[in-house]
């Protein structure tokens, strides 16, 4: 456990001490930023040409021919490139530099190595998506009404948030790690309990959120994005365990990732009720987002695909480490 945690921390920190992490972040924010810009212009357009599902423009293209459709194709074409940048260094770098020998002779099991590396790149991927939460208030047309409703519960919520913030600042400034973590934990618990009681018991709320557009598609979109990302990352990790050069790892993971993207281009050839389309749908991630996740639907078929491919690739990665020993 300690070994896994230690490796996880190193791998995650390595993203922030090397230029690669920032390159991935930059590319990704430019990509989503352009999508957001497009969604914004469609949302503010006059007349019947607007947009029904803003999350769809952000993530999946559109049914109607136009800039949103093109942008969707581009976004998913570049998506495996971004996840490839994240995963390419994980094992290929260690193989190239020879440090894999140090890692594999430490008292840590192969599957722990694979798990720690995957968890680190996955955590970085989630961090990559965090800034995009800033788009949501606009995409969902959120309004917040503030009321000075100071009841015991709401005060508990505010105090809890305050303590958690204090702990966070202490942690960043390098104070006593344990104390700061405890403060954050207690603050979060107090805020959670206070917030729950406040929302269920008090008549007048501190803040009332109303969204002009259905908010649940945003939730399902993020669930989809997290799981689909896990699949692409696991593919990249497996490829990275096979080669010594990071560049080759990146290109191969892009290629493998496109296997789950390009079939979506075939949808124009098939009727959406046909058997062929069922196959196309099963393998093409953009279609999952265009049809389901961004419209607030969670279909079990893509979820099964993501989870099985992820687990299978992690299994193969662990086996490829074993195969290195047997060489």
């Amino acid at each position: 456990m300690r070994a896994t945690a230690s490796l996880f921390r190193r791998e995650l920190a390595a993203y922030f001490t090397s230029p690669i992490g920032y390159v991935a972040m930059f590319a990704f924010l430019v990509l989503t930023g352009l999508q957001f810009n497009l969604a914004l212009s469609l949302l503010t357009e006059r007349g019947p040409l607007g947009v029904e599902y803003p999350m769809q423009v952000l993530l999946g293209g559109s049914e109607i021919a136009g800039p949103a459709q093109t942008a969707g194709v581009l976004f998913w074409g570049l998506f495996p490139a971004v996840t490839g940048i994240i995963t390419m260094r994980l094992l290929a770098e260690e193989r190239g530099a020879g440090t894999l020998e140090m890692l594999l002779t430490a008292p840590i099991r192969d599957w722990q190595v694979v798990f720690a590396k995957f968890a680190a790149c996955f955590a970085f991927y989630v961090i990559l998506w965090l800034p995009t939460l800033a788009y949501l208030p606009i995409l969902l047309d959120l309004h917040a009404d503030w009321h000075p409703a100071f009841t015991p519960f709401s005060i508990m919520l505010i105090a809890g948030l305050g303590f958690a913030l204090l702990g966070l600042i202490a942690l960043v400034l390098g104070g006593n790690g344990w104390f700061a973590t405890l403060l954050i934990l207690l603050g979060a618990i107090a805020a959670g309990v206070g917030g729950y009681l406040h929302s269920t018991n008090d008549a007048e709320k501190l803040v009332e959120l109303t969204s002009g557009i259905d908010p649940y598609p945003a939730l399902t979109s993020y669930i989809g994005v997290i799981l689909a990302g896990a699949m692409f990352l696991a593919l990249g990790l497996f490829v990275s365990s096979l080669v010594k050069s990071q560049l080759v790892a990146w290109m191969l993971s892009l290629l493998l990732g496109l296997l789950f993207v390009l079939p979506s281009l075939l949808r124009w050839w098939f009727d959406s009720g046909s058997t062929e389309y069922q196959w196309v749908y099963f393998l093409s991630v953009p279609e999952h987002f265009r049809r389901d996740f961004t419209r607030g639907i969670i279909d079990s078929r893509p979820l099964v695909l993501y989870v099985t491919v992820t687990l299978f690739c992690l299994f193969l990665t662990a086996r490829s480490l074993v195969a290195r020993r047997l060489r």
Partner: protein
Amino acid sequence: MIAVEHLTKYYGEYPAVRDVSFRVDKGQVVGFLGPNGAGKSTTMRILAGYLTASTGKATIDGKDVFWDPIEARRRIGYMPESCPLYADMRVDEYLWFRGGLKGLSRSARKQRIGYVLERCWVNDVRRQPIGTLSKGYRQRVGLADALLADPPVLILDEPTAGLDPTQIRETRLLLRELGRQHTMRLSTHILSEVEMTCDSVIIIYQGKVVEDGSLTAVRQRHNNQSLEDIFVRLTGQEGI
């Protein structure tokens, strides 16, 4: 401490190590000699758990390196040839990470890192990124890492390769001191080093053990020749 029985390793069709058997007792310092490509590194990698033997058995302190790899690796401090390290980490960060990997608690890590930094003379570069260090310092960081979990067995693959004479001398001194506390097995090309630091030698040639015994016993067996003459004779390079 180290027991190897009938170890064989094939790379495809090519047998790099053929039926090697030897024992190293507790507290001994053993020099592992052989020309390039004789199977030194392969044997060491098998012991360290990086490679798996094709047939045969190797145990460290009674723990089989194949069946009980984690426990066996806990008992080994391994320093590979050319000593690869993460160039973008600082020395103390690296040791902190390795300490965690080896399962040391936070307080134990703090204490052990302080000890090995002093012991291996790397305290003055503790905040430097490893990529900026000279070869000699890197080698010492590798040694510090091997010592980190205070393992009973040290396996060092050419610890003095690529160092300048002063550094070789310092490293040799360090190895001598370490030999008092640890069972140690080091491979090298420098024969005088073996004579100065080791209790016994194992000479390997074309994947087979050709000589094994304490320094004096080996010399006696070969009519008190110098180690260099013995080495050259056994590895079949007399003509050169």
